[in-house]
């Protein structure tokens, strides 16, 4: 098979095409139920991609990222209420602010958590979720506890109510993806991957492991915080168990693993699959079935497909092409540029 198209052109064309489709999506498919699902899918995809920036690259499985989701949510809620904001587009300006606040909190939290490694790290991050959930419930002076904080109504027109959320969610996802891609193609990204493969060896080769991990943690928290803020405005209310939810943390991890950690498109694929499944189970299945499904999916993915869907498909694709005599290199590198993974 002769290469008729310039490979460089393909590399750029694919993501742009998908982006164009994503932008056009809610304008073509105007069914609000569908767009609603899409907004949730974007939220999940944003969360999974952000999580990947830290955990996917460094190999430290953080089970507590929902903490920053909560920080972002509470930040936007508290500022809106304190400043007596009236809704509208202006509140979206608080989204990056919420991200910054979450990132600031990530510095001490990350610093404490990163004093541990391996199992202990995973457990500590999970414990942080409970600490902050408890704080959210009990610091009623600030958070109003279980009564919840209500954000001002957005006042968007009824026909296009969902669109601002969709596009803001898309914007956050795109920026997170861009940052993720940029890190991957930089030496800093190699440092993170080296930490994943052999942290102590990396240190002996000049990698500043401590600060590298913390920075990735903070960057990832920034995006998660922004998603949390957007979600809070979307839902209109912030309750402690909604935003400091261990199940959410776990779902994020599953999405990333399902799609393929360390890849760019993996978390998105995982998010779409899981979001659709969750919607289905919410509507059609009684209590408990969703957890069984989630747990079973966990087991299947971890035991049978730990590389994730995207990488496994990529590997099958390469094997198919080699068999077809298309002349792929037999010692093909595992890490492909963006285009193969999106294919």
């Amino acid at each position: 098979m002769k290469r008729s198209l310039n490979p460089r052109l393909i590399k750029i064309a694919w993501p742009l095409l998908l982006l164009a489709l994503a932008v056009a999506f809610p304008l073509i498919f105007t069914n609000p139920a569908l767009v609603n699902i899409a907004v949730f899918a974007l939220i999940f995809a944003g969360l999974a991609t952000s999580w990947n920036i830290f955990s996917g690259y460094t190999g430290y499985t953080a089970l507590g990222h929902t903490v920053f989701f909560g920080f972002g949510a509470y930040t936007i809620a508290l500022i809106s209420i304190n400043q007596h904001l009236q809704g509208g587009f202006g509140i979206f300006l608080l989204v990056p602010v919420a991200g910054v606040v979450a990132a600031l909190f990530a510095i001490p939290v990350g610093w404490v958590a990163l004093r541990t490694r391996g199992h202990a790290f995973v457990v500590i991050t999970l414990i942080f979720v409970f600490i902050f959930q408890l704080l959210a419930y009990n610091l009623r002076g600030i958070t109003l506890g279980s009564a919840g904080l209500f954000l001002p109504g957005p006042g968007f027109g009824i026909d296009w109510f969902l669109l601002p959320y969709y596009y803001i969610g898309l914007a956050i996802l795109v920026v997170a993806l861009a940052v993720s891609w940029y890190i991957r193609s930089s030496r800093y990204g190699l440092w993170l991957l080296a930490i994943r493969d052999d942290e102590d060896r990396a240190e002996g080769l000049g990698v500043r492991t401590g600060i590298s991990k913390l920075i990735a943690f903070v960057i990832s928290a920034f995006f998660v915080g922004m998603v949390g803020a957007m979600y809070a405005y979307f839902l209109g209310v912030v309750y402690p168990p909604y935003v400091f939810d261990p199940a959410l943390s776990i779902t994020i991890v599953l999405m990333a693993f399902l799609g393929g950690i360390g890849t760019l498109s993996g978390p998105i694929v995982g998010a779409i699959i899981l979001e659709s499944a969750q919607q289905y189970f919410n509507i059609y299945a009684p209590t408990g079935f969703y957890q069984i499904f989630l747990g079973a999916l966990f087991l299947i993915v971890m035991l049978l497909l730990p590389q994730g869907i995207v990488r496994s498909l990529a590997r099958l694709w390469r094997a198919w092409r080699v068999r077809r005599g298309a002349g792929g290199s037999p010692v093909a590198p595992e890490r492909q540029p963006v285009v193969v993974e999106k294919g």
Partner: protein
Amino acid sequence: MSLLEIHGISKAFGGIRALDDCSLTVEQGSITGLIGPNGSGKTTLFNVITGYERPDAGTVTLRGTDVTNASPSTIFGLGLGRTFQLVRIFPRLTVMENMHIAVQRRGIRALLRRWTAPDERAHAQELLDFVGISHLTDAPAENLSYGQKKLLEFAMILIAEPQVVLLDEPAGGVNPTLAAQLTNRIKTLNQRGITFLIVEHNMQFVMSLCDKVAVMHRGSLLTEGTPDQVRGNPAVLEAYLGD
């Protein structure tokens, strides 16, 4: 002032004295061998020198700078590199990516881009060529054979332009041809000014390569001298047989 000075290093793990008032000097431009029976503390000494272990007592000085409690990354940045007994590279990255990690460049700019200088990649390729694995540049490191991985690890140290290289059993687990090639390469690099400290069990390797040999026994230095002096020393034989 010697390039690398180790004074009175002691290190105990629980009740076991791995290093006991151990002292050693490595002169600039030399190839020093470090031999001794199993359990004499050679690898522990390497760990202390490179910052992977903190000694209970004693000092390590590199070109006059005290690096006793410095971190491994600082020590590497000061020009001291080290390979491991059981080779350690980054399996899921490609050979070229492995090389890239060890390049020492300061500043934020160096982190934001993969290659900051136009000749970096060429330099890395040149080193891979020097050790003989340049045909595997884009292969995932885990696909390399054991010997090839050892060469990669060696190249990774070299790209940082170190002043002194510690080799922990470089000839271990490789065939004699490769060991001979390794000897030649070390000699070439030594002529270019790099100092070597080599732990080895392969006596032929040590004797043919090193201009000075230090013998460790039970955590401290037993004796040192030229290869011939050491070879003829009955105490050395005693140490090996006695254990």
